[in-house]
């Protein structure tokens, strides 16, 4: 079993990552960090640069967590990509960062967090940055 965390290079992603590390230690399971980068845009703010992913790897190594860092680069839907990975590794819990979106914002842009909460077959831990 695996703790799966969706990582984005901002405060939400960092919050999710910290919570996931604690969760992996508590459950004594391995950690899988996934960064999703859309392939239908020219620049994706949610794409973590190679050196950012390297830093995450190094930090996790220093913490002594058994972890894998993966980047998904196909598709245009982060929620779907995460759900696919969750099924693939049979995740025991999915950790995501939760950002505030107004009702209008949700209507226009949708909410990946909401979709993950509703569609994931495993428990979802939604974290807010402090």
């Amino acid at each position: 079993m695996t703790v799966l965390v969706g990582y984005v290079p901002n405060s939400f992603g960092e919050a999710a990552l910290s919570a996931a590390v604690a969760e992996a230690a508590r459950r004594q399971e391995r950690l899988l960090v996934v960064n999703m980068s859309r392939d239908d845009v020219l620049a994706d703010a949610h794409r973590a640069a190679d050196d950012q992913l390297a830093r995450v790897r190094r930090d996790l190594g220093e913490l002594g967590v058994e972890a894998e860092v993966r980047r998904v680069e196909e598709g245009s839907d982060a929620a779907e990509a995460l759900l696919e990975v969750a099924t693939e590794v049979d995740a025991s819990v999915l950790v995501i960062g939760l950002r505030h979106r107004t009702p209008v914002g949700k209507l226009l842009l949708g909410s990946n967090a909401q979709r993950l909460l509703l569609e994931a077959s495993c428990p979802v831990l939604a974290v807010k940055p402090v």
Partner: protein
Amino acid sequence: MDNLNHLLQGFGDVLTPMNLLIALTGVVVGTAVGVLPGIGPAMTVALLLPITYGLEPTTALILFAGIFYGGMYGGSTTSILLNTPGESASVVTAIEGNKMAKGGRAAQALATAAIGSFIAGTIGTVLIVLVMPQIVKFAVTLGAPEYFAIILVAFVGVSAVLGASRIRGLASLLIGLSIGVVGIDFVTGQQRLTFGIPQLADGIDVVVVAVGLFAVGEGLWVAAHLRRKAGEVIPVGQPWMGRQDWKRSWPAWLRGTAFGFPFGAIPAGGAEIPTFLSYMTEKKLSKHPEEFGKGAIEGVAGPEAANNASAAGTLVPMLALGLPTNATAAIMLAALQGYGIEPGPLLLTNEPKLVWALIASLFIGNTLLLVLNLPLAPTWAKLLRIPRPYLYAGILFFAAMGAYAVNGSPFDLYLLLGLGVLGFVIRRFGLPVLPLIVGVILEPLAEKKGRQSLQLSGGDLSGLLGGPVAWIAYAIVVAVLIWPLLAKLRGTSGGDDDHHHAGTKSEVAA
């Protein structure tokens, strides 16, 4: 001094709230499309052509001029932040600009590009004011044979001098000329290449050709290559420059302008050669040669200035002779024809208000661009996050609407799709788009002048030779065409082609 008075008059015409609003719209739209790779000012002007038929010609030209200059600014933003040149003239900027951005100097790179573009654009526009009327004076004395010869120079220039391959350029020109002859022969009244289809008897509208090639062709091309890895946006603060940056940028801006303008102004110029020459010069003259390849500010300042100065230079042959040397100018020319205004040496005499208002709007647009781009460059970079499917769906919608609006006939939509497929195919095989569109637009003029010359001489081919101007023009054409053969015979070929390769990829997109 007369020109100065006309120019002031032009400023008077432009400085109305409505025209200023139009100029602002133009530069905003221009910057936006310049930022997005694959969507250039040429495509945008083509898409807007049918919409602007309801406007005054002056107003429409102010809009197009804003888009034209704006595209140059926007292209550098993408080059610097993403290493993806938005248009072919920004290819060289990406070399040093992206390195600077990666080294944490994105703000300085954006600043030197924007200020350099402003300075070069302004100097270039001043040079238009000084040079263009002189060329017009010379041009009105030209007879039909001379004019025909100069058009041939432009044809050979855009197809054989620019771009990676002469064969591809000439093939593209030939396709363009073939599309241009479709319709009724204006001398004999015979139908040419109409295949018995009545709708083709009027010829193929330039709007449909331009929209089909640029918008539908690009749309199909992107659809076939939709998936690719997203880039990372380099975070950037407010663009600014230190004292040292100013000191190193100044001479580069001026030298870049000196390279760019003449290349833009000759009927075979383009922006790729001067930007590259400027880059090489800066590399040679720099006091910090070790920084080149790692992010030298001169390598951004020079080519960006050359790029904008050449854009200004392009307007000289367009306004003085009616000869376009880049795709956007070609479509602006088509717009003039759409208003029933005949471009050519008589344009300045017949429509002085229009010409001077256009030039005045260039000064204003350039200033607006500096104001818009210096503080807002990071905001523009956010446009790159728009998913491509949304973007191209919108473009195809506008393309179809525009093509239908020209004549209100469904036949044009089939034609649009056919030309879109042609646009896709020429991208697939690396044929440049510019010779094709120049061929379509200039074919009727070339044919008219050529046949006039022949009529004057009673069908004798010597009638095409005309006077000394025509002889020089033919000599240039022959020289350009047989140069590769000579170079091959002397065994010195190969070295010359190196710098073209950098432009090849983006040329397809432009």
